[in-house]
């Protein structure tokens, strides 16, 4: 562990004029990047700008020869032919989708591919000793034998870093490290990265979370449309979020949310005493007698920490799709309704956009038009026979009105960017013409521009007189969208704040403590 690069050169990495082409498309065009030793360097840009591609070139995923330009690392021109080569040089990349195996333990994952062996037999004693050391360095006190699937995403991220430390990393690349983390885990991770900086490890962070970048980055490189636009030095240039957005977008975004005049009507959806048990653990409740209501034209936010029970509430309402239903009533337009199956829920006018669109919202084998009609096939079929013409025209309609970026609705959804995939999922639910639409983390993993569009869509739905529930972990998002916000903590609704009385602090207080009985 040295505090300075061994060669004493302040520039650790220089990528010069990197150009990477795919058939028909130039992903990177003369991109340059310069990272100083011991600094935290952020890379910002919209989805599709080329950030991940640049990092893949650096780490050897796109090997030497598949790009033009030079990678000069530790003052030597490198020709990485695969990931192992870059790792051997001390460059470790942690991808957005963590590369951990859920069934194996923390220790096994840390040493995967790097097992300490004595004459060909894995030396688990040695591995254990080293894992305890590594875990301590990242601030984890869990038993190394714990299977990965049993620890939360936040801790999994830390295990990935422990894995990187095991590979004697000098340059750590983190792709959207806090995307799936809650506030406290995110903060912990950022502190860790700062701590690693203190120990001489240089980091490159790709992130959309501008507030975090503002917090820890020393330099920020902005990439737009495959070109490097500018590099800002945080201290010297007095950089703040707006400045970063300006660089990413080309002009200041006046507001991140479209203007919206709420037109709120009567209460039309009410939930009383909703109690649901944990699917496996007998004595645990995931929803503790929740009560809430939604009015026509209203956007209601649900705020809470990761694991508070928001998704569980939504899914258990939506056709009892989660947990063991114990008791509770749902009223629509004053009359009680039964939502015992997903189909009943859809027929009753509910729609639910799932949290994880890839695993729960989409069949990645399908194309856009099939997905668009998937939740309301009855509307486009006669006597069970699907009318493919109607299917096509419906899908086209939504493609246009939501401005989904795709050459045609025959394209497979797997090829779309995150933002466009989310639009297709929204289209699917909008087609069912629900009265109440529940959106679970609708803008996760989506760039600024697409988020703006999705906010606009949500507001349009409200304007049509529908009720919208938005579940989100981004408080600014909830504050910008919602007319009222409910807070949830450990399965219970702890409070509700109106738009004008809510702010980050008041929300956070309610999100982190049990309801006071009064």
């Amino acid at each position, binding site marked *: 562990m040295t505090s300075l690069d061994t060669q004493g050169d302040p520039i650790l990495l220089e990528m010069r004029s990197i150009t990477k082409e795919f058939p028909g498309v130039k992903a990177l065009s003369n991109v340059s990047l310069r990272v100083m030793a011991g600094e935290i360097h952020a890379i910002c840009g*919209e989805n599709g700008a080329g950030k991940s591609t640049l990092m893949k070139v650096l780490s050897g995923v796109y090997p030497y020869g598949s790009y033009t330009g030079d990678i000069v690392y530790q003052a030597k021109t490198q020709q990485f032919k695969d990931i192992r080569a870059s790792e051997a040089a001390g460059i470790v990349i942690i991808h957005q989708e963590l590369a951990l195996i859920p069934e194996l333990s923390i220790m096994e994952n840390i040493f995967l591919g790097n097992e300490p062996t004595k004459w060909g037999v894995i030396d688990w004693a040695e591995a254990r000793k080293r894992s305890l050391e590594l875990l301590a360095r990242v601030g984890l006190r869990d038993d190394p034998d714990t299977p990965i699937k049993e620890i939360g995403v936040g801790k999994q991220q830390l295990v990935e870093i422990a894995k990187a430390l095991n590979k004697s990393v000098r340059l750590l690349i983190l792709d959207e490290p806090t995307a799936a983390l809650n506030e406290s885990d995110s903060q912990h991770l950022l502190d860790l990265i700062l701590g690693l900086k203190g120990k001489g490890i240089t980091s490159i962070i790709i992130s959309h979370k501008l507030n975090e970048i503002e917090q820890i980055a020393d330099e920020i490189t902005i990439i737009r449309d495959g070109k490097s636009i500018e590099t800002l030095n945080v201290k010297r240039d007095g950089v703040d979020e707006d400045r970063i957005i300006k660089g990413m977008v080309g*002009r200041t975004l006046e507001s991140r949310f479209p203007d919206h005049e709420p037109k709120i009507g009567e209460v039309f959806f009410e939930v009383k005493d909703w109690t649901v048990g944990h699917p496996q653990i007998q004595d645990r409740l995931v929803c503790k007698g929740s009560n809430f209501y939604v009015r026509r034209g209203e956007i209601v936010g649900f705020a809470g920490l990761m694991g508070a029970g928001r998704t569980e509430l939504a899914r258990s309402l939506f056709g009892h799709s989660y947990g063991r239903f114990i008791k509770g009533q749902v009223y629509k337009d004053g009359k009680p309704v039964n939502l015992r199956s997903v189909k009943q*829920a859809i027929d009753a006018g509910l729609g639910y956009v799932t949290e994880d669109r890839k*695993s729960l919202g989409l069949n990645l084998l399908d194309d856009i038009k099939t997905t668009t009609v*998937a939740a309301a096939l009855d509307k486009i079929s006669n006597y069970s026979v699907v009318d493919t013409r109607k299917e096509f025209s419906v899908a*086209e309609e939504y493609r246009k009105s939501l401005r989904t*970026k795709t050459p045609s609705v025959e394209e497979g959804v797997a*090829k779309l960017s995150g933002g466009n995939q989310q639009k297709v999922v929204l289209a699917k639910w909008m087609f069912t013409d629900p009265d109440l639409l529940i959106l679970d983390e609708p803008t996760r993993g989506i760039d600024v521009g697409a988020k*703006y569009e999705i906010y606009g869509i949500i507001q349009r739905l409200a304007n049509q007189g529908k009720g919208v529930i938005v579940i989100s972990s981004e408080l600014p998002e909830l504050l910008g969208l919602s007319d009222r916000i409910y807070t949830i903590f450990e399965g219970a609704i702890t409070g509700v704040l109106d738009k004008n009385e809510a702010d980050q602090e008041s929300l956070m207080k309610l999100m982190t403590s049990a309801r006071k009985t009064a």
Partner: protein
Amino acid sequence: MNALKKLFGGNTRQFGMIFALVALIVFFQIFTEGRTLTPGNVINLFNGNSYILILAIGMVLVIIAGHIDLSVGSVAAFVGVFVALAMRDWGFPWWVGVLFGLFLGAVIGAWQGFWVAYVGIPAFIVTLAGMLLFRGFNQFVGKSNTIPVPKEFQFIGSGYLPEVGPNTGFNNLTLLIGLVAVAFVIIMSLRARAAAKALGAEVPELWVEVTKLVLICGAILYATYLFATGRPGTSFPIPGLILAVLVLIYGFIADKTVLGRHVYAVGGNRHAAELSGVQSKKVNFMVMMNMSILAGLAGMIFVARSTASGPFDGVGWELDAIAAVFIGGAAVTGGVGTVIGSIVGGLVMAVLNNGLQLLGVGADLTQIIKGLVLLAAVAFDVYNKSQGKRSITGMLMKNFQRNNEIKPDEATSTKEVISKEA
């Protein structure tokens, strides 16, 4: 060259396999000095393999839904022997026997479907148990004897269309069927084209459509000619007719009905399907029950063709059916596959068997060749798919690609959004 790509490219993944089938037929036709495409041989092909192809229809739906059924051979044999017994010992007339067999298949299917869909035991295990269970029942009921079946029953397995109408030198009914098929194909094609145009969707160029139609209709007419000019008394065989009807029905269901969509949805992503309102348990149950019904039908057709049930019936049929489905382009993980693809896959194996037999190749060498062909066919298909929606000719012509490449993410450019709002 680009045009050739347009001819074959687009959504049809199984064009690769049809290519292989045609190539095999041509190969054998040349090397057997013309004995492959004779009326007699073509009729034999269908007679000898219809029951496997019927199994493949059921099996592809099972595999699309993400399961597998290893019991089909044993179920087919069991139904076959039970029906034969019922007709001999209880005096069932042949049509009652057929209904009984289908009913038996449904009961067995419901049993297996229950365990798979509602209890949640993996289909592999349930049907493996079924394979042993029903093989045992087969031996128990049949006592390893062969039981002959009455002539009327044999009709469904070895019968032909009757000779009606004026003496044209051909079997008239077969001609009729062929002409109807051609007319059907042309009309559907024209309608689809008109509909696509009306919606503003992409239509392939006219000459591409015409060429495709000419090729398909040409093939149908040639096949009709072969079947109609067989030995007097033969025509398009009844098992082939049953197969064709089933292909039309199931192809329609899979492609164009809500139920079909549900099967693909459950296979593609069960959780997403459930959260979209699909009742996955019902779908799984129906798919398993349907398979056993078809297995019962296949068993009866086989017994009818063999004129008697026997203790070895059904042995190994599940593997033949599964091979046909995978050669036809289904994915091991579910969510992908077509009925017509499985038929093509089954025909590839059948033509291979038949051709090697005509050439007098010994059994040992035949097995080796079949194994290698199976591997090559699926590897070829997997390679095609891993390249995205590329067609085979696309693979050969990298420079000419305009559509269908792998693009990195399309971005929603914030600039665009803001300029629109401004």
